């Protein structure tokens, strides 16, 4: 029986706690009697027969939807869209959930004799997926059946010929999505819900849309009003997507949503990485030896090899639920299943929030976690992993641990380089940089070309990363990065510290000499349910 997540009050007997630190780790001692650690739940039991569960979900849809088999007819136009490389994190061991679901859908389509089938990676403004990434996501069988004839491809948000403006919401938000998807007799969306932010109308209204449509919710105002964007009912980002969903629904786009959830088995329950998933006082002699060997080994290899070693890790995530049918009905059940794994009850806020940032974020799979992404991972994702209120008080301090090297992937993140060099050197205020620079980057022909033909994130993407952290920036009094490269950290507008003790010392200017501290022991993923 997996144990739920819990909050540990730190006393003198509490061992040093694990902080992820990019492609490495730190063990840090937290001050006794005024610190607490939020530990994630252990991985919940997966579904024993995932393929059987998928078939059952397709045959027994939720909400106002007919079974998938009944909706598939010979001669129809079917489009299957699926989440891109940003999900799940880290990428999962084969077979990927998307492969299992897509094969089940296609099997029904084959039984109905559907010939016109397209598969589209719904990547919005993310980089295109490479062949090996697509193969990993959908499986070799599906890839080889559809890619050679051009029926399996990446969504292109800058292709004017393959975008269709569906309409406008009552708030004036333009809804524009992939034309093939919009004009299909049936659009099947295959989703992986790693966190509660994913899925719902965000799948189609964001994943298949264009800059023209995205800018209505990917902006500073929306993000600052989303408290947090992991809690759909308090997220302006989701409200906007749901309004767009209404437009899609009323315009007659027929969507069959398939959502899946997974457990947080990131590092496995056995094997060398499993130590990272255990509570420190439960580390056996073998775990300790493994950890030390891993740390020493990582110290001795080049950063490039370290990155390769971590990026090659495939997580043994397993599916915990699958539901299909009408978008809203499906998403309600999905969110409950995500919360079943992630929510940890936490009482009250503290002065300081600490977190160790790992090597991966949604936007650096097989790539480099550059300083802008470090900011987004800490202030965007980890900070927002709460329901109710943030675990740190307004005006408090966020201390995160990451090496933050001044390093960028030139193919994946070309616009990030210019954003970091030109924009952040002028201002780190999200409102100012949105006003002054966003349009120029979003409409830059060179970035557009790289996004469409190479493997680059869209020109505007680094701005979105910055907006992602704008709620945290507004909430916090100071941000300190421990062990980060000083010039990168300063460019981000944060303060660098060599050690955690130094960081506490620096934080004392803001929160006093005896602050209360919360440490987010993440990953594996958890979500603080703060009351």
């Amino acid at each position, binding site marked *: 029986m997996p144990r739920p997540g819990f909050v540990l009050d730190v006393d003198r007997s509490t061992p040093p706690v694990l902080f992820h630190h990019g492609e490495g780790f730190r063990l840090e001692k937290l001050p006794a009697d005024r610190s607490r650690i939020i530990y994630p739940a252990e991985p919940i039991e997966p579904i024993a027969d995932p393929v059987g569960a998928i078939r059952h979900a397709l045959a027994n849809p939720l909400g106002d939807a007919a079974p998938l088999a009944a909706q598939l007819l010979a001669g129809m136009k079917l489009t299957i869209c699926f989440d891109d490389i940003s999900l799940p994190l880290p990428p999962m061991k*084969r*077979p990927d959930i998307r492969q299992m679901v897509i094969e089940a859908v*296609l*099997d029904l389509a*084959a039984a109905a004799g559907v010939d016109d089938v397209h598969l589209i990676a719904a990547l919005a403004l993310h980089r295109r997926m*490479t062949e090996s990434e697509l193969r990993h996501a959908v499986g*070799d069988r599906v890839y*080889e*059946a559809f890619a050679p004839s051009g029926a399996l491809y990446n969504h292109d948000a800058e292709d004017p010929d393959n975008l269709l403006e569906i309409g406008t919401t009552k708030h004036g938000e333009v809804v524009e999505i992939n034309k093939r998807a919009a004009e299909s007799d049936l659009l099947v969306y295959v989703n992986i819900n790693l966190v509660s932010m994913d899925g719902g109308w965000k799948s189609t209204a964001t994943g298949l849309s264009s800059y023209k449509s995205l800018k209505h919710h990917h902006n500073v105002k929306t993000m600052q009003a989303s408290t947090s964007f992991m809690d759909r009912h308090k997220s302006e980002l989701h409200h906007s997507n749901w309004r767009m969903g209404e437009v899609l629904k009323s315009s007659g786009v027929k969507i069959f949503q398939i959502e899946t959830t997974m457990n947080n088995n990131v590092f496995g329950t056995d094997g060398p990485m499993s130590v990272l998933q255990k509570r420190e006082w439960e580390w056996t002699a073998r775990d300790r030896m493994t950890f030390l060997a891993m740390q020493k080994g990582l110290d001795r290899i080049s950063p490039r090899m370290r990155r390769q070693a971590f990026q090659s890790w495939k997580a043994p995530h397993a599916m915990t639920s699958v539901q299909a049918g009408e978008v809203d009905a499906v998403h309600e059940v999905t969110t409950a299943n995500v919360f079943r794994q992630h929510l940890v009850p936490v009482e009250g806020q503290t002065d300081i929030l600490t977190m160790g940032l790992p090597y991966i974020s949604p936007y650096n799979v*097989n790539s480099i976690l550059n300083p802008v992404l470090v900011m987004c991972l800490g202030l965007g994702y980890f900070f927002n992993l709460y329901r109710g209120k943030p675990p740190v008080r307004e005006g408090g301090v966020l201390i995160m641990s990451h090496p933050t090297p001044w390093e960028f992937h030139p193919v994946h993140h070309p616009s990030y380089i210019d954003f970091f060099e030109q924009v952040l050197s002028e201002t780190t205020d999200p409102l100012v940089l949105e006003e002054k620079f966003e349009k120029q980057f979003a409409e830059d022909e060179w970035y557009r070309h790289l996004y469409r033909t190479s493997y680059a994130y869209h020109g505007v993407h680094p701005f979105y990363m910055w907006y992602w952290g704008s709620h945290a920036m507004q909430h916090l009094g100071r941000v300190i990065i421990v062990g980060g490269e000083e010039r990168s950290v300063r460019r981000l507008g944060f303060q660098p510290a060599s050690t955690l003790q130094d960081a506490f010392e620096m934080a004392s200017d803001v929160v006093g000499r005896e602050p209360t501290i919360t440490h987010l022991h993440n990953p594996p993923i958890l979500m603080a349910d703060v009351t």
Partner: protein
Amino acid sequence: MSPKATELTKRLPVNGVSAARSASMMAKVASAKARNATKAALPFPLTPPPVPAGVEPREKKSTTGADYDTDWARSYPARLARVMLVQGLVRPAVKAIASPRVRGLDRLNGLEGPVIFAANHHSHVDTPLLLATIPEPRRHRLVIGAGADYFFANRLTAPLSALVIGAIPIERTKVTRKSADQAAALIDEGWSFLIFPEGGRSPDGWGQPFRGGAAYLATRCGVPVVPIHLDGTGRILRKGKSLPQRSVAVVTFGAPLHPAEGEDSRRFAARLEREVASLSDELYSGWYEARKHAHAGTTPPLQGPDTGAWRKAWTVGDRTPRRKRKATWPEL
């Protein structure tokens, strides 16, 4: 050779047999006669006594063929030797000759306990190829059903087959329960079983109807059958050839099949054959087309088109599998 024999040979060179060869044949006959004379001279018990007239001689107990006892080949020392042979010799040799491409291994995820692997059969390369590609741990806890009349025919090939490939004899030429009992007992002990339900290698490059052995064992032991399609091994070493030729072989694993409620062995065997045919179709037409054919009942049969023998042989060369395209996108 006696002068008389030499004279006879010279006078009667029959059917073009050379004089020298005829002489040697005559010499053999003469020496056999001499041996019999010596035997007769030695008394019992130095030589066996003759069987009295009117007494039925006791049948000699055979130690080869289906009667060969393979228990020793599953002892730990023999298994260790086999692991070393498979890993150190068979796998590198298969890799060098057949460059195997393996597909569908993900379909075996979550499969527990022993299983029966059932594959189509083109060549002697099939067994080493499967030994090299069946995933661990089953690879090293696997017995293979091999024709008793071929692999266990004599005292040299029988122990070699048992040791190197972990074979057990399967009677092909007469109806007997012995082979099935032995295979079932081993499956019950946790051994996986590899069998070629066609009963022998393809004579013409196309498949043959599946016999019911695999289906019967699955029903009897309550274990799933994993259908496997092998492609390209006929090009490497087809029946009738003795030297292998380098080529690419493709091994496609299918999803495990369980006997349905009330399904008899014959129908299950037919379903198994259809599944292997569908895996073949997957290779030639692509996965989605193959699924459509399977659902519509139009999967091309393993036995090839229903035409005369020469046209079937002619058509074999027309089939080319869909090759994995060389990656044109850069690996980043």
